[in-house]
Protein backbone atom coordinates (compact mmCIF):
# COMPACT_ATOMS: atom_id res chain seq x y z
CA UNK A 1 0.00 0.00 0.00
CA UNK A 2 1.24 3.46 -0.82
CA UNK A 3 2.71 5.70 1.86
CA UNK A 4 0.87 8.97 2.42
CA UNK A 5 1.75 12.27 4.00
CA UNK A 6 -0.24 13.99 6.71
CA UNK A 7 0.83 17.50 7.54
CA UNK A 8 0.40 18.36 11.22
CA UNK A 9 -1.37 21.55 10.11
CA UNK A 10 -4.12 19.49 8.51
CA UNK A 11 -4.40 17.06 11.41
CA UNK A 12 -7.54 18.66 12.83
CA UNK A 13 -9.45 18.10 9.59
CA UNK A 14 -8.15 14.53 9.29
CA UNK A 15 -9.32 13.75 12.83
CA UNK A 16 -12.64 15.42 12.23
CA UNK A 17 -13.29 13.02 9.38
CA UNK A 18 -12.30 10.05 11.51
CA UNK A 19 -14.54 11.24 14.33
CA UNK A 20 -17.53 10.88 12.04
CA UNK A 21 -16.97 7.12 12.10
CA UNK A 22 -15.10 6.47 15.34
CA UNK A 23 -14.81 7.59 18.94
CA UNK A 24 -11.14 8.60 19.03
CA UNK A 25 -8.88 7.90 22.02
CA UNK A 26 -5.28 9.06 22.33
CA UNK A 27 -2.55 9.44 24.97
CA UNK A 28 -2.87 12.83 26.70
CA UNK A 29 -1.14 14.53 29.59
CA UNK A 30 -2.95 13.72 32.83
CA UNK A 31 -4.66 16.80 34.25
CA UNK A 32 -4.04 15.67 37.85
CA UNK A 33 -0.47 14.38 37.51
CA UNK A 34 1.18 16.35 34.67
CA UNK A 35 4.16 14.00 34.50
CA UNK A 36 1.86 11.17 33.48
CA UNK A 37 0.37 10.39 30.11
CA UNK A 38 -2.98 8.63 30.12
CA UNK A 39 -5.43 7.31 27.53
CA UNK A 40 -8.34 9.73 27.04
CA UNK A 41 -11.08 10.39 24.55
CA UNK A 42 -9.79 13.06 22.21
CA UNK A 43 -12.27 15.90 22.23
CA UNK A 44 -12.98 18.18 19.30
CA UNK A 45 -10.17 20.72 18.72
CA UNK A 46 -7.80 18.80 20.98
CA UNK A 47 -4.38 18.29 19.43
CA UNK A 48 -2.82 14.85 19.83
CA UNK A 49 0.47 14.61 21.65
CA UNK A 50 3.40 13.37 19.55
CA UNK A 51 6.15 13.78 22.12
CA UNK A 52 5.03 11.48 24.94
CA UNK A 53 7.26 8.55 25.94
CA UNK A 54 4.47 6.11 26.65
CA UNK A 55 1.41 5.82 28.87
CA UNK A 56 1.85 4.19 32.28
CA UNK A 57 -1.11 1.93 31.57
CA UNK A 58 -1.11 0.13 28.25
CA UNK A 59 -4.20 0.27 25.99
CA UNK A 60 -5.11 -3.35 26.89
CA UNK A 61 -8.00 -2.03 28.97
CA UNK A 62 -9.82 -1.07 25.77
CA UNK A 63 -10.30 -4.79 25.06
CA UNK A 64 -9.93 -6.13 28.58
CA UNK A 65 -11.26 -3.59 31.11
CA UNK A 66 -9.92 -3.69 34.65
CA UNK A 67 -13.42 -4.59 35.77
CA UNK A 68 -16.06 -5.84 33.38
CA UNK A 69 -19.60 -7.07 33.80
CA UNK A 70 -19.98 -10.35 31.93
CA UNK A 71 -23.39 -11.67 32.88
CA UNK A 72 -26.34 -10.57 34.99
CA UNK A 73 -29.63 -11.73 36.43
CA UNK A 74 -32.60 -9.50 37.11
CA UNK A 75 -35.07 -11.81 38.78
CA UNK A 76 -34.14 -13.53 42.06
CA UNK A 77 -36.94 -16.04 41.51
CA UNK A 78 -35.30 -17.23 38.30
CA UNK A 79 -31.61 -16.57 38.88
CA UNK A 80 -30.39 -17.58 35.45
CA UNK A 81 -27.51 -15.58 34.09
CA UNK A 82 -27.86 -13.72 30.81
CA UNK A 83 -25.22 -11.91 28.75
CA UNK A 84 -24.93 -8.12 28.96
CA UNK A 85 -25.56 -5.90 25.96
CA UNK A 86 -22.42 -4.97 24.08
CA UNK A 87 -21.54 -1.41 23.24
CA UNK A 88 -21.54 -1.12 19.46
CA UNK A 89 -19.56 2.10 18.94
CA UNK A 90 -16.51 1.86 16.71
CA UNK A 91 -13.33 3.11 18.31
CA UNK A 92 -10.04 4.43 17.04
CA UNK A 93 -6.93 4.33 19.18
CA UNK A 94 -4.57 7.00 17.95
CA UNK A 95 -0.81 7.06 18.58
CA UNK A 96 -0.55 3.54 19.90
CA UNK A 97 3.11 2.70 20.44
CA UNK A 98 4.22 -0.30 18.34
CA UNK A 99 5.06 -2.36 21.44
CA UNK A 100 1.47 -2.00 22.66
CA UNK A 101 -0.02 -2.92 19.29
CA UNK A 102 2.25 -5.95 19.18
CA UNK A 103 1.07 -6.86 22.69
CA UNK A 104 -2.57 -6.73 21.62
CA UNK A 105 -1.79 -9.00 18.65
CA UNK A 106 -0.23 -11.45 21.13
CA UNK A 107 -3.26 -11.17 23.40
CA UNK A 108 -5.47 -12.15 20.46
CA UNK A 109 -3.75 -15.54 20.55
CA UNK A 110 -4.52 -15.89 24.26
CA UNK A 111 -8.14 -14.77 24.26
CA UNK A 112 -9.10 -16.36 20.96
CA UNK A 113 -7.55 -19.83 20.86
CA UNK A 114 -10.28 -21.81 19.16
CA UNK A 115 -13.83 -21.35 17.92
CA UNK A 116 -15.43 -23.02 20.92
CA UNK A 117 -13.69 -20.96 23.58
CA UNK A 118 -13.10 -17.59 21.90
CA UNK A 119 -13.50 -14.93 24.56
CA UNK A 120 -16.64 -13.13 23.38
CA UNK A 121 -15.89 -9.99 25.44
CA UNK A 122 -12.39 -9.53 24.09
CA UNK A 123 -13.37 -10.35 20.54
CA UNK A 124 -16.30 -7.96 20.22
CA UNK A 125 -14.21 -5.03 21.47
CA UNK A 126 -11.33 -5.97 19.24
CA UNK A 127 -13.64 -6.20 16.21
CA UNK A 128 -14.83 -2.63 16.63
CA UNK A 129 -11.44 -1.08 17.32
CA UNK A 130 -8.95 0.23 14.77
CA UNK A 131 -5.44 1.28 15.73
CA UNK A 132 -3.25 4.04 14.37
CA UNK A 133 0.29 3.65 15.63
CA UNK A 134 2.99 6.18 16.30
CA UNK A 135 6.49 4.89 15.65
CA UNK A 136 9.08 5.48 18.36
CA UNK A 137 11.87 7.70 17.13
CA UNK A 138 13.36 8.17 20.60
CA UNK A 139 13.11 4.96 22.63
CA UNK A 140 13.57 5.43 26.35
CA UNK A 141 16.34 3.70 28.33
CA UNK A 142 14.00 1.08 29.77
CA UNK A 143 12.78 -0.09 26.35
CA UNK A 144 13.95 -3.36 24.81
CA UNK A 145 11.21 -3.97 22.24
CA UNK A 146 13.78 -4.73 19.54
CA UNK A 147 14.75 -7.85 21.53
CA UNK A 148 11.23 -8.91 22.47
CA UNK A 149 9.57 -9.70 19.14
CA UNK A 150 8.71 -6.05 18.47
CA UNK A 151 10.57 -2.90 17.50
CA UNK A 152 10.30 0.89 17.60
CA UNK A 153 8.68 0.95 14.14
CA UNK A 154 6.95 -2.47 14.36
CA UNK A 155 3.75 -2.62 12.31
CA UNK A 156 2.15 -5.72 13.85
CA UNK A 157 -1.45 -5.26 14.92
CA UNK A 158 -1.78 -1.75 13.49
CA UNK A 159 -4.08 -0.47 10.77
CA UNK A 160 -1.98 2.58 10.02
CA UNK A 161 1.50 3.55 11.22
CA UNK A 162 2.49 7.19 11.60
CA UNK A 163 6.14 8.24 11.63
CA UNK A 164 6.81 11.71 12.97
CA UNK A 165 9.00 13.53 10.45
CA UNK A 166 8.81 16.88 12.28
CA UNK A 167 6.04 19.04 10.89
CA UNK A 168 4.72 16.17 8.77
CA UNK A 169 3.69 12.60 9.48
CA UNK A 170 4.50 9.72 7.19
CA UNK A 171 1.38 7.51 7.12
CA UNK A 172 1.80 3.86 6.20
CA UNK A 173 -1.52 2.03 5.66
CA UNK A 174 -1.30 -1.60 6.79
CA UNK A 175 -4.85 -2.88 6.45
CA UNK A 176 -7.92 -2.06 4.41
CA UNK A 177 -9.19 0.05 7.34
CA UNK A 178 -5.90 1.96 7.38
CA UNK A 179 -6.01 2.40 3.62
CA UNK A 180 -9.47 3.87 3.84
CA UNK A 181 -8.43 6.24 6.65
CA UNK A 182 -5.50 7.53 4.60
CA UNK A 183 -7.37 7.59 1.28
CA UNK A 184 -7.75 11.35 1.19
CA UNK A 185 -4.11 12.11 1.98
CA UNK A 186 -1.49 12.99 -0.62
CA UNK A 187 1.13 10.42 -1.60
CA UNK A 188 4.45 10.59 0.20
CA UNK A 189 7.57 11.63 -1.69
CA UNK A 190 10.46 9.21 -2.00
CA UNK A 191 12.52 11.37 0.35
CA UNK A 192 9.80 11.14 3.06
CA UNK A 193 9.90 7.35 2.86
CA UNK A 194 13.69 7.40 3.04
CA UNK A 195 13.55 9.74 6.03
CA UNK A 196 11.15 7.31 7.76
CA UNK A 197 13.57 4.44 7.19
CA UNK A 198 16.44 6.55 8.48
CA UNK A 199 14.52 7.33 11.68
CA UNK A 200 13.77 3.64 12.17
CA UNK A 201 17.42 2.78 11.71
CA UNK A 202 18.45 5.46 14.18
CA UNK A 203 15.90 4.29 16.75
CA UNK A 204 17.21 0.73 16.50
CA UNK A 205 20.78 1.93 16.89
CA UNK A 206 19.81 3.89 20.00
CA UNK A 207 18.71 0.63 21.63
CA UNK A 208 21.71 -1.43 22.68
CA UNK A 209 21.22 -5.17 23.30
CA UNK A 210 20.32 -5.56 26.95
CA UNK A 211 19.00 -9.09 27.21
CA UNK A 212 20.29 -12.48 26.15
CA UNK A 213 17.79 -15.28 25.49
CA UNK A 214 19.89 -17.71 23.44
CA UNK A 215 19.96 -20.42 26.14
CA UNK A 216 16.34 -20.20 27.22
CA UNK A 217 15.00 -22.48 24.52
CA UNK A 218 17.49 -25.28 25.25
CA UNK A 219 17.20 -25.18 29.02
CA UNK A 220 14.51 -27.56 30.26
CA UNK A 221 11.53 -26.20 32.10
CA UNK A 222 12.60 -27.89 35.35
CA UNK A 223 16.18 -26.67 35.00
CA UNK A 224 14.98 -23.06 34.82
CA UNK A 225 12.35 -23.66 37.47
CA UNK A 226 14.95 -24.95 39.92
CA UNK A 227 17.42 -22.06 39.53
CA UNK A 228 18.65 -20.85 42.95
CA UNK A 229 18.29 -17.34 41.51
CA UNK A 230 14.56 -17.24 42.28
CA UNK A 231 15.17 -17.03 46.02
CA UNK A 232 17.33 -13.95 45.47
CA UNK A 233 14.97 -12.01 43.20
CA UNK A 234 12.03 -12.63 45.51
CA UNK A 235 13.79 -11.03 48.47
CA UNK A 236 12.99 -7.54 47.23
CA UNK A 237 9.62 -8.20 45.60
CA UNK A 238 6.69 -6.97 47.68
CA UNK A 239 4.07 -8.81 45.60
CA UNK A 240 2.33 -5.49 44.85
CA UNK A 241 1.32 -6.50 41.34
CA UNK A 242 2.27 -3.19 39.71
CA UNK A 243 4.30 -4.98 37.03
CA UNK A 244 1.32 -7.10 36.04
CA UNK A 245 -1.18 -4.26 35.91
CA UNK A 246 1.02 -2.07 33.73
CA UNK A 247 2.12 -5.00 31.56
CA UNK A 248 0.42 -4.96 28.14
CA UNK A 249 0.52 -8.78 27.91
CA UNK A 250 -0.51 -9.80 31.45
CA UNK A 251 -4.03 -11.15 31.20
CA UNK A 252 -4.87 -13.06 34.39
CA UNK A 253 -8.30 -12.42 35.81
CA UNK A 254 -10.72 -13.39 38.52
CA UNK A 255 -14.48 -13.89 38.17
CA UNK A 256 -16.74 -12.82 41.03
CA UNK A 257 -20.49 -12.52 41.55
CA UNK A 258 -21.92 -9.31 42.96
CA UNK A 259 -25.45 -8.96 44.29
CA UNK A 260 -27.39 -5.85 45.23
CA UNK A 261 -27.81 -5.46 49.03
CA UNK A 262 -31.47 -6.52 48.83
CA UNK A 263 -30.44 -9.63 46.92
CA UNK A 264 -32.67 -8.65 44.02
CA UNK A 265 -30.29 -8.38 41.13
CA UNK A 266 -26.87 -9.73 40.51
CA UNK A 267 -24.03 -9.67 38.08
CA UNK A 268 -20.93 -11.70 37.26
CA UNK A 269 -17.86 -9.54 36.94
CA UNK A 270 -14.34 -10.24 35.83
CA UNK A 271 -11.50 -8.26 37.36
CA UNK A 272 -7.78 -8.14 36.64
CA UNK A 273 -5.93 -10.48 38.94
CA UNK A 274 -2.26 -11.35 39.22
CA UNK A 275 -0.01 -14.31 39.88
CA UNK A 276 1.90 -12.47 42.64
CA UNK A 277 -1.15 -12.51 44.92
CA UNK A 278 -0.99 -15.27 47.57
CA UNK A 279 -4.71 -15.99 47.16
CA UNK A 280 -4.41 -16.43 43.41
CA UNK A 281 -3.81 -20.17 43.62
CA UNK A 282 -5.13 -20.92 47.10
CA UNK A 283 -7.39 -23.98 47.15
CA UNK A 284 -10.55 -24.11 49.25
CA UNK A 285 -8.88 -26.88 51.29
CA UNK A 286 -6.14 -24.44 52.36
CA UNK A 287 -3.49 -26.07 50.17
CA UNK A 288 -1.61 -23.53 48.05
CA UNK A 289 0.52 -24.82 45.17
CA UNK A 290 2.38 -21.48 45.08
CA UNK A 291 2.30 -20.62 48.75
CA UNK A 292 5.87 -19.24 48.80
CA UNK A 293 6.64 -15.76 47.51
CA UNK A 294 9.59 -17.06 45.48
CA UNK A 295 7.25 -19.43 43.65
CA UNK A 296 4.93 -16.57 42.75
CA UNK A 297 7.72 -14.28 41.57
CA UNK A 298 9.15 -17.11 39.49
CA UNK A 299 5.74 -17.75 37.93
CA UNK A 300 5.57 -14.32 36.31
CA UNK A 301 8.96 -14.53 34.60
CA UNK A 302 8.73 -18.23 33.76
CA UNK A 303 5.30 -17.68 32.24
CA UNK A 304 6.54 -14.93 29.96
CA UNK A 305 9.89 -16.37 28.91
CA UNK A 306 9.51 -20.15 29.15
CA UNK A 307 5.92 -21.33 29.42
CA UNK A 308 4.55 -19.16 26.60
CA UNK A 309 7.41 -20.01 24.19
CA UNK A 310 6.79 -23.71 24.94
CA UNK A 311 3.14 -23.34 23.92
CA UNK A 312 3.67 -20.88 21.09
CA UNK A 313 7.09 -21.33 19.49
CA UNK A 314 8.86 -18.06 18.56
CA UNK A 315 6.52 -16.11 20.85
CA UNK A 316 7.29 -14.57 24.25
CA UNK A 317 4.85 -13.03 26.69
CA UNK A 318 6.71 -9.72 26.69
CA UNK A 319 7.08 -6.93 24.14
CA UNK A 320 9.87 -5.03 25.87
CA UNK A 321 7.80 -1.93 26.63
CA UNK A 322 9.82 -1.38 29.81
CA UNK A 323 6.86 -0.34 31.96
CA UNK A 324 7.58 -2.94 34.63
CA UNK A 325 11.17 -1.75 34.80
CA UNK A 326 10.12 1.89 35.08
CA UNK A 327 7.31 1.42 37.57
CA UNK A 328 8.46 -1.36 39.91
CA UNK A 329 8.61 0.26 43.38
CA UNK A 330 11.56 -1.91 44.41
CA UNK A 331 13.50 -1.71 41.15
CA UNK A 332 13.22 -5.30 39.98
CA UNK A 333 14.40 -5.18 36.38
CA UNK A 334 12.99 -7.87 34.09
CA UNK A 335 16.07 -7.51 31.89
CA UNK A 336 18.30 -8.65 34.77
CA UNK A 337 15.94 -11.54 35.47
CA UNK A 338 15.97 -12.70 31.84
CA UNK A 339 19.75 -12.53 31.75
CA UNK A 340 19.98 -14.50 34.99
CA UNK A 341 17.61 -17.14 33.57
CA UNK A 342 19.69 -17.27 30.44
CA UNK A 343 22.97 -17.65 32.32
CA UNK A 344 21.57 -20.23 34.74
Amino acid at each position, binding site marked *: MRHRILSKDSLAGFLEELRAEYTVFAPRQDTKVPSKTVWKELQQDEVPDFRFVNTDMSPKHFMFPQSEC*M*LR*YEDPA*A*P*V*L*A*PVEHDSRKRLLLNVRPCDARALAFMDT*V*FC*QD*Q*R*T*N*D*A*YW*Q*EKRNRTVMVGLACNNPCPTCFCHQANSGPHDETGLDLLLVDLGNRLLAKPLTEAGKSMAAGLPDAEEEDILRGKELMQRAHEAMPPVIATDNLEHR*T*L*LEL*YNLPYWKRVCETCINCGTCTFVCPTC*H*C*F*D*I*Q*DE*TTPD*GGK*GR*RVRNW*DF*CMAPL*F*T*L*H*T*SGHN*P*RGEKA*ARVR*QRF*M*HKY*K*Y*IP*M*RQPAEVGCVGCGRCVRLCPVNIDIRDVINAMNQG
Partner: protein
Amino acid sequence: MLNPYLPYPVRIAEVRTETEDKTLRTYALDFLHERDAAAFAYRPGQFAELSVAGAGEVPIGIASSPTEGTRLLFTVFRAGTVTSRLHQMREGDLMGVRGPLGNGFPLQSHEGKNILIVAGGYAVTTLRSVMVWLQHPQNRSRFGEVDFVYGARTPGMLLYRDEMNAWSQTAGVRCHITVDREAPGWTGLTGFVPAVVEQLAPDPHNAIALVCGPPAMIRFTQPVLDARGWQGDQIFLSLENRMKCGIGICGRCNVGHQYVCKDGPVFSKAELDLLPAEY
Protein backbone atom coordinates in the same frame (compact mmCIF):
# COMPACT_ATOMS: atom_id res chain seq x y z
CA MET B 1 -20.97 -15.25 18.70
CA LEU B 2 -20.64 -18.10 21.21
CA ASN B 3 -20.02 -16.98 24.75
CA PRO B 4 -17.94 -19.57 26.60
CA TYR B 5 -18.73 -17.93 29.97
CA LEU B 6 -22.49 -18.29 29.64
CA PRO B 7 -23.76 -21.23 31.71
CA TYR B 8 -26.52 -23.49 30.47
CA PRO B 9 -29.58 -23.11 32.73
CA VAL B 10 -30.42 -26.36 34.55
CA ARG B 11 -32.98 -27.42 37.12
CA ILE B 12 -32.08 -29.48 40.15
CA ALA B 13 -34.07 -32.68 39.62
CA GLU B 14 -32.85 -34.53 42.68
CA VAL B 15 -30.59 -34.01 45.67
CA ARG B 16 -29.17 -37.04 47.43
CA THR B 17 -27.18 -36.83 50.64
CA GLU B 18 -24.31 -39.26 50.18
CA THR B 19 -22.42 -39.40 53.45
CA GLU B 20 -23.43 -39.68 57.08
CA ASP B 21 -21.79 -36.36 57.94
CA LYS B 22 -23.92 -34.73 55.17
CA THR B 23 -20.91 -32.91 53.67
CA LEU B 24 -21.35 -34.63 50.32
CA ARG B 25 -24.45 -34.41 48.21
CA THR B 26 -25.15 -35.59 44.71
CA TYR B 27 -27.11 -33.24 42.48
CA ALA B 28 -28.98 -34.56 39.48
CA LEU B 29 -29.45 -31.74 36.97
CA ASP B 30 -31.76 -31.50 33.98
CA PHE B 31 -31.15 -29.03 31.17
CA LEU B 32 -33.90 -26.47 30.74
CA HIS B 33 -33.44 -26.54 26.98
CA GLU B 34 -32.98 -29.64 24.86
CA ARG B 35 -30.52 -27.91 22.55
CA ASP B 36 -28.19 -27.30 25.53
CA ALA B 37 -28.30 -30.98 26.45
CA ALA B 38 -27.24 -31.83 22.90
CA ALA B 39 -24.43 -29.26 23.00
CA PHE B 40 -23.08 -30.62 26.30
CA ALA B 41 -21.36 -33.70 24.81
CA TYR B 42 -18.84 -34.95 27.36
CA ARG B 43 -16.40 -37.74 28.15
CA PRO B 44 -15.65 -39.39 31.51
CA GLY B 45 -13.06 -37.36 33.42
CA GLN B 46 -14.19 -33.96 32.20
CA PHE B 47 -15.51 -31.35 34.58
CA ALA B 48 -17.90 -28.40 34.52
CA GLU B 49 -18.26 -25.08 36.30
CA LEU B 50 -21.34 -25.24 38.47
CA SER B 51 -22.83 -21.79 38.60
CA VAL B 52 -24.99 -20.38 41.38
CA ALA B 53 -26.09 -16.86 40.48
CA GLY B 54 -24.98 -14.51 43.23
CA ALA B 55 -22.39 -16.90 44.67
CA GLY B 56 -20.21 -17.72 41.68
CA GLU B 57 -18.82 -20.76 40.00
CA VAL B 58 -17.03 -23.87 41.20
CA PRO B 59 -15.27 -26.51 39.09
CA ILE B 60 -16.63 -30.00 39.82
CA GLY B 61 -15.93 -33.30 38.07
CA ILE B 62 -18.86 -34.82 36.20
CA ALA B 63 -20.01 -37.93 38.09
CA SER B 64 -22.52 -39.14 35.52
CA SER B 65 -21.60 -41.00 32.38
CA PRO B 66 -22.70 -39.87 28.91
CA THR B 67 -24.14 -43.38 28.55
CA GLU B 68 -26.77 -42.51 31.19
CA GLY B 69 -28.62 -39.94 29.11
CA THR B 70 -28.67 -36.16 29.38
CA ARG B 71 -29.23 -35.87 33.15
CA LEU B 72 -25.98 -34.75 34.79
CA LEU B 73 -24.73 -35.84 38.20
CA PHE B 74 -22.31 -33.89 40.36
CA THR B 75 -21.24 -34.92 43.84
CA VAL B 76 -20.32 -31.80 45.76
CA PHE B 77 -18.37 -31.45 49.01
CA ARG B 78 -19.52 -28.50 51.13
CA ALA B 79 -16.41 -26.36 51.53
CA GLY B 80 -16.44 -22.81 50.19
CA THR B 81 -18.85 -20.04 49.22
CA VAL B 82 -20.44 -21.62 46.17
CA THR B 83 -20.65 -25.17 47.52
CA SER B 84 -22.19 -23.95 50.78
CA ARG B 85 -24.87 -22.09 48.80
CA LEU B 86 -25.38 -25.14 46.65
CA HIS B 87 -25.94 -27.27 49.75
CA GLN B 88 -28.82 -24.95 50.67
CA MET B 89 -30.51 -25.43 47.30
CA ARG B 90 -33.39 -27.82 46.79
CA GLU B 91 -35.05 -29.86 44.11
CA GLY B 92 -36.67 -27.58 41.54
CA ASP B 93 -34.18 -24.72 42.02
CA LEU B 94 -32.45 -23.24 39.00
CA MET B 95 -28.72 -23.01 38.56
CA GLY B 96 -26.16 -23.09 35.73
CA VAL B 97 -23.64 -25.49 34.26
CA ARG B 98 -20.77 -24.38 32.05
CA GLY B 99 -18.81 -26.92 30.10
CA PRO B 100 -17.88 -29.65 29.48
CA LEU B 101 -14.33 -28.57 30.28
CA GLY B 102 -10.95 -30.28 30.24
CA ASN B 103 -9.65 -33.35 28.46
CA GLY B 104 -11.13 -36.36 30.29
CA PHE B 105 -9.57 -39.81 30.61
CA PRO B 106 -7.92 -41.13 27.44
CA LEU B 107 -10.04 -44.28 27.39
CA GLN B 108 -10.71 -44.49 23.68
CA SER B 109 -6.99 -44.72 22.91
CA HIS B 110 -6.57 -47.64 25.35
CA GLU B 111 -9.11 -50.07 23.99
CA GLY B 112 -8.31 -53.74 24.56
CA LYS B 113 -6.43 -53.04 27.79
CA ASN B 114 -7.10 -54.01 31.38
CA ILE B 115 -7.99 -51.07 33.57
CA LEU B 116 -7.01 -50.43 37.14
CA ILE B 117 -8.94 -47.67 38.89
CA VAL B 118 -7.65 -46.34 42.20
CA ALA B 119 -9.79 -43.84 44.10
CA GLY B 120 -9.64 -42.29 47.53
CA GLY B 121 -12.22 -40.17 49.32
CA TYR B 122 -14.53 -38.00 47.25
CA ALA B 123 -12.12 -37.92 44.29
CA VAL B 124 -14.07 -41.00 43.22
CA THR B 125 -16.70 -38.82 41.56
CA THR B 126 -15.21 -38.65 38.05
CA LEU B 127 -14.24 -42.31 38.35
CA ARG B 128 -17.91 -43.15 38.82
CA SER B 129 -18.35 -41.69 35.34
CA VAL B 130 -15.63 -44.04 34.05
CA MET B 131 -17.07 -47.08 35.83
CA VAL B 132 -20.56 -46.53 34.46
CA TRP B 133 -19.18 -45.81 30.99
CA LEU B 134 -17.06 -48.98 31.01
CA GLN B 135 -20.05 -51.09 31.99
CA HIS B 136 -22.18 -49.94 29.11
CA PRO B 137 -22.65 -52.93 26.77
CA GLN B 138 -21.08 -51.03 23.89
CA ASN B 139 -17.93 -50.30 25.87
CA ARG B 140 -17.55 -53.36 28.14
CA SER B 141 -16.51 -55.63 25.27
CA ARG B 142 -13.88 -53.14 24.07
CA PHE B 143 -11.83 -53.31 27.27
CA GLY B 144 -10.27 -56.08 29.35
CA GLU B 145 -10.65 -56.70 33.07
CA VAL B 146 -11.53 -53.76 35.32
CA ASP B 147 -10.25 -53.57 38.91
CA PHE B 148 -11.80 -50.79 40.96
CA VAL B 149 -10.05 -49.99 44.24
CA TYR B 150 -11.79 -47.40 46.36
CA GLY B 151 -11.31 -46.37 49.94
CA ALA B 152 -12.99 -44.01 52.37
CA ARG B 153 -12.34 -43.22 56.02
CA THR B 154 -15.47 -44.96 57.31
CA PRO B 155 -18.34 -46.95 55.80
CA GLY B 156 -20.52 -43.89 56.27
CA MET B 157 -18.22 -41.84 54.03
CA LEU B 158 -18.39 -44.20 51.06
CA LEU B 159 -20.07 -42.68 48.01
CA TYR B 160 -22.36 -44.57 45.61
CA ARG B 161 -22.54 -47.67 47.87
CA ASP B 162 -25.66 -49.15 46.32
CA GLU B 163 -24.34 -48.68 42.82
CA MET B 164 -21.03 -50.31 43.67
CA ASN B 165 -22.83 -53.45 44.78
CA ALA B 166 -24.38 -53.61 41.33
CA TRP B 167 -21.04 -52.95 39.61
CA SER B 168 -19.56 -56.02 41.29
CA GLN B 169 -22.10 -58.14 39.43
CA THR B 170 -20.85 -57.04 36.00
CA ALA B 171 -18.72 -59.61 34.22
CA GLY B 172 -15.04 -58.67 34.15
CA VAL B 173 -15.44 -55.95 36.80
CA ARG B 174 -14.05 -56.42 40.31
CA CYS B 175 -14.63 -53.91 43.11
CA HIS B 176 -12.25 -53.73 46.06
CA ILE B 177 -13.84 -51.38 48.56
CA THR B 178 -11.99 -50.56 51.74
CA VAL B 179 -12.39 -48.38 54.81
CA ASP B 180 -9.49 -47.15 56.93
CA ARG B 181 -10.24 -49.34 59.95
CA GLU B 182 -12.74 -51.87 61.26
CA ALA B 183 -16.21 -50.52 61.90
CA PRO B 184 -19.42 -51.98 63.30
CA GLY B 185 -21.35 -53.79 60.59
CA TRP B 186 -18.56 -53.55 58.02
CA THR B 187 -17.54 -56.90 56.60
CA GLY B 188 -15.49 -55.67 53.65
CA LEU B 189 -11.81 -54.79 53.33
CA THR B 190 -10.07 -52.60 55.86
CA GLY B 191 -6.85 -50.62 55.47
CA PHE B 192 -5.56 -47.81 53.29
CA VAL B 193 -5.87 -47.82 49.53
CA PRO B 194 -2.14 -48.30 48.75
CA ALA B 195 -2.10 -51.46 50.90
CA VAL B 196 -5.11 -52.83 49.03
CA VAL B 197 -3.40 -52.08 45.72
CA GLU B 198 -0.27 -53.87 46.95
CA GLN B 199 -2.29 -56.91 47.91
CA LEU B 200 -4.05 -56.90 44.55
CA ALA B 201 -0.63 -56.87 42.83
CA PRO B 202 -1.95 -55.45 39.54
CA ASP B 203 -0.11 -56.67 36.45
CA PRO B 204 1.10 -53.76 34.29
CA HIS B 205 1.07 -55.87 31.12
CA ASN B 206 -1.39 -54.38 28.60
CA ALA B 207 -2.99 -52.22 31.29
CA ILE B 208 -3.55 -48.62 32.30
CA ALA B 209 -4.24 -47.14 35.72
CA LEU B 210 -6.50 -44.18 36.51
CA VAL B 211 -5.66 -42.73 39.92
CA CYS B 212 -7.63 -40.03 41.76
CA GLY B 213 -7.42 -39.18 45.41
CA PRO B 214 -5.81 -37.09 48.09
CA PRO B 215 -2.08 -36.36 47.63
CA ALA B 216 -1.10 -38.77 50.44
CA MET B 217 -2.94 -41.62 48.75
CA ILE B 218 -1.25 -40.88 45.43
CA ARG B 219 2.15 -40.54 47.08
CA PHE B 220 1.92 -44.00 48.67
CA THR B 221 0.21 -45.73 45.74
CA GLN B 222 2.88 -44.64 43.27
CA PRO B 223 5.74 -46.75 44.73
CA VAL B 224 3.46 -49.78 44.78
CA LEU B 225 2.82 -49.42 41.05
CA ASP B 226 6.49 -48.59 40.36
CA ALA B 227 7.62 -51.74 42.13
CA ARG B 228 5.40 -53.83 39.90
CA GLY B 229 6.79 -52.23 36.75
CA TRP B 230 4.07 -49.77 35.83
CA GLN B 231 5.48 -47.07 33.53
CA GLY B 232 4.74 -43.33 33.61
CA ASP B 233 2.72 -43.45 30.39
CA GLN B 234 0.40 -46.13 31.83
CA ILE B 235 -0.70 -44.10 34.83
CA PHE B 236 -3.17 -41.22 34.56
CA LEU B 237 -3.92 -38.78 37.35
CA SER B 238 -6.50 -36.04 37.59
CA LEU B 239 -5.33 -32.72 39.11
CA GLU B 240 -7.47 -30.29 41.04
CA ASN B 241 -6.00 -26.81 40.79
CA ARG B 242 -7.97 -23.68 41.47
CA MET B 243 -9.64 -22.51 38.28
CA LYS B 244 -11.86 -19.69 37.11
CA CYS B 245 -12.30 -19.41 33.36
CA GLY B 246 -11.91 -23.13 32.65
CA ILE B 247 -10.74 -22.44 29.09
CA GLY B 248 -7.03 -21.65 29.49
CA ILE B 249 -7.11 -17.86 29.65
CA CYS B 250 -7.30 -16.57 33.23
CA GLY B 251 -3.92 -18.06 34.15
CA ARG B 252 -4.83 -19.42 37.58
CA CYS B 253 -4.33 -23.16 37.15
CA ASN B 254 -0.94 -23.13 35.39
CA VAL B 255 1.38 -26.00 36.17
CA GLY B 256 4.43 -25.07 34.15
CA HIS B 257 3.29 -24.48 30.59
CA GLN B 258 0.17 -26.59 31.04
CA TYR B 259 -3.28 -25.36 32.02
CA VAL B 260 -5.03 -27.85 34.28
CA CYS B 261 -8.41 -26.64 33.01
CA LYS B 262 -7.65 -27.00 29.32
CA ASP B 263 -4.75 -29.45 28.91
CA GLY B 264 -5.89 -31.46 31.96
CA PRO B 265 -7.26 -32.15 34.47
CA VAL B 266 -6.00 -35.61 33.41
CA PHE B 267 -2.25 -35.96 32.89
CA SER B 268 -0.11 -39.05 32.55
CA LYS B 269 2.50 -39.64 35.23
CA ALA B 270 5.12 -39.27 32.48
CA GLU B 271 3.80 -35.78 31.64
CA LEU B 272 3.72 -34.73 35.29
CA ASP B 273 7.31 -35.84 35.79
CA LEU B 274 8.37 -33.09 33.37
CA LEU B 275 6.44 -30.40 35.24
CA PRO B 276 6.99 -28.60 38.54
CA ALA B 277 4.88 -30.04 41.35
CA GLU B 278 2.69 -26.94 41.61
CA TYR B 279 -0.50 -28.82 42.31
